[in-house]
């Protein structure tokens, strides 16, 4: 088993790491305090990153992306993850792979501008009445001549204030259950479509999370993404890789950054005449964090490798997402403890990491839902998928 990383990838990781450290991390504290990223700053980091070819790296090269495979993308996301959500979005773009389902005229209108960063896209699935149960949505698209009429509402939609268009899930056949849901590309300016309130969150300051309302929104046939009735399936197929990279790999990256700060503090902070790193209880916090980060990281990279082999490791994606998120949360919690009062105080970023970490166990499928996926896989096919050979 060869764990070496080739030189080109290492060069790329150096570039991303340096960019995150010098261009993005210095913006974090102000951003968290004010709750907004000034548009001119957002523009500036976008342009700098773009000039280095770092926007939309997950997208295929023939579309203008970097065409990174899943393993390399996860390695890159370990670096991008070491800063605040909104800075990652503006600098590197969360260009969702579900957009690769665009064909014909949809390519020029939605896919290509998303790859270049000219237009930004959010994914809108969750509704007040349907979160974990994504098939339980009420938003409906009725056939209307050649096109559709969309009615309903969404909430918690990340980056919705900034985004130019949305991939919206809606029921197209109320009698077909999960097979009666389709995805639509909906532009922000479309009449009848309004963006509601920015719903304030515990962390992720600077990223908006909004309500969306659709009142008799007229859509054409071109607004349908993928086949009618295949929406949930398409979302599941394409969000897996994103979930692994955005939640798993970024969580591991941030946990590693936090562990670095914990280690420095354990060396430098003296109580009872010695560095607190000399105390075994502090050592156990450090060691447990290192063990879990290493485990999460290997889990993510192995899952990414299986994706690159053309396998469908859905249970492993669930494992890696859950374990990555929970590792990040445990490490952030230990960091607050290890820093003592300073860990709780807003003079240091530790309490922010603690707030920001918490969502990773909830969005992109809660830990409970992912455990359900893993258990179902086990009950159906047994545990062979864990050690495939």
């Amino acid at each position, binding site marked *: 088993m060869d764990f070496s990383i080739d*030189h*080109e990838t290492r*060069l*790329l990781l*150096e*570039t991303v790491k*340096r*960019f995150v450290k010098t261009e993005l991390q210095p913006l974090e504290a102000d951003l968290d305090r004010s709750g907004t990223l000034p548009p001119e700053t957002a523009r500036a980091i976008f342009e700098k990153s773009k*000039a*280095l*070819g*770092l926007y939309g*790296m997950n997208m295929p090269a023939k579309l203008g992306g*970097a065409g990174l495979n899943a393993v390399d993308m996860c390695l890159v996301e370990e670096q991008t993850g070491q800063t605040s959500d909104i800075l990652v979005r503006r600098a590197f773009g969360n260009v969702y792979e579900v957009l690769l389902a665009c064909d014909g005229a949809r390519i020029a209108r939605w896919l290509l501008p998303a790859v270049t960063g000219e237009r930004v896209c959010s994914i809108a699935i969750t509704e007040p009445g349907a979160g974990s149960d994504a098939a339980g949505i009420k938003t409906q698209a009725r056939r209307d001549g050649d096109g559709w009429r969309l009615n309903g509402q969404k909430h918690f939609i990340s980056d919705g204030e900034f985004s130019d268009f949305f991939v919206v899930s809606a029921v197209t056949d109320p009698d077909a259950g999960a097979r009666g849901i389709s995805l639509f590309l909906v532009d922000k300016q479309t009449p009848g479509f309004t963006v509601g309130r920015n719903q304030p969150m515990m962390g992720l300051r600077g990223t908006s999370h909004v309500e969306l309302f659709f009142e008799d929104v007229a859509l054409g046939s071109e607004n349908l993404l993928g086949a009618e009735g295949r929406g949930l399936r398409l979302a599941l197929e394409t969000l897996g890789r994103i979930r692994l990279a955005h939640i798993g790999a970024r969580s591991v990256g941030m946990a590693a950054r936090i562990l670095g700060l914990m280690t420095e503090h354990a060396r430098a902070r003296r109580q009872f005449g010695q560095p607190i790193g000399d105390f075994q209880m502090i050592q156990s916090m450090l060691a447990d964090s290192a063990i879990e980060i290493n485990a999460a990281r290997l889990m993510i990279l192995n899952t990414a490798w299986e994706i690159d082999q053309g396998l469908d490791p859905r249970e492993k994606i669930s494992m890696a997402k859950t374990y990555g998120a929970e590792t990040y949360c445990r490490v952030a919690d230990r960091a607050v403890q290890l820093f003592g009062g300073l860990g709780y105080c807003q003079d240091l970023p530790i309490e922010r990491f603690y707030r920001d970490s918490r969502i990773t166990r909830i969005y992109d499928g809660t830990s409970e839902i992912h455990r359900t996926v893993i258990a179902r896989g086990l009950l159906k096919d047994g545990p062979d998928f864990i050690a495939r050979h």
Partner: protein
Amino acid sequence: MKVLVPVKRVIDYNVKVRVKADQTGVELANVKMSMNPFDEIAIEEAIRMKEAGKAEEVIAVSIGPQQAQETIRTALAMGADRGVHVLHDGVVEPLAVAKMLKAIVEKEGPTVVILGKQAIDDDCNQTGQMLSALLGWSQATFASKIEVGDGELTVTREVDAGLETIKVKTPAIVTTDLRLNEPRYASLPNIMKAKKKPIEAMSPADLGVDPTPRLATLKVVEPAKRAGGVKVADVAELVSKLKNEAKVI
């Protein structure tokens, strides 16, 4: 004009260096290696000369083991045009490096050679000066600013007393100081392009140079731990301690 830039593979500046248990040198196994930071500055300056239309080609040269090719690729990813790799395992001292560079200079015919003022592993600060002497070229060391003129360079140097500005005739040797520039990030498209740029391989023998070291390392040890300070009561005690304990006066 062509610009030649030697780049050395050294222990990354972030690594906490450890002495080997047998005291023959420092631990290189499992240690991150990178391009010498002063050489990164040299590459950056050469690329800027090219971007400003003052240079046509930037050639990166490295003398070292197989992995030194990575250091060359890093230079190519920053924007150098092609590489020359002199394959050699083991220590090479500044004089041997300067002799090999002289042979390469004679083959390639650059107008300017930009080197780091020193490598952060051995801190010798000799190669540029030796190369200048071997070639009989002018030298401008510790550059913090370089202006390319017609048949000459105007170089601002960082010296103990402040900044000194000198003019040197080309061909010339320049060595870089820290404040010359801020080296760029290798962009993703340039990283991809670097894969296709040529690296010519050769050996010290091809260049007619015997790289056998002339110095023998007796042993390498950690610097002594700093002892805590003491307060002295008066000048007399201070002088007495300097004389009898520190033995410096």
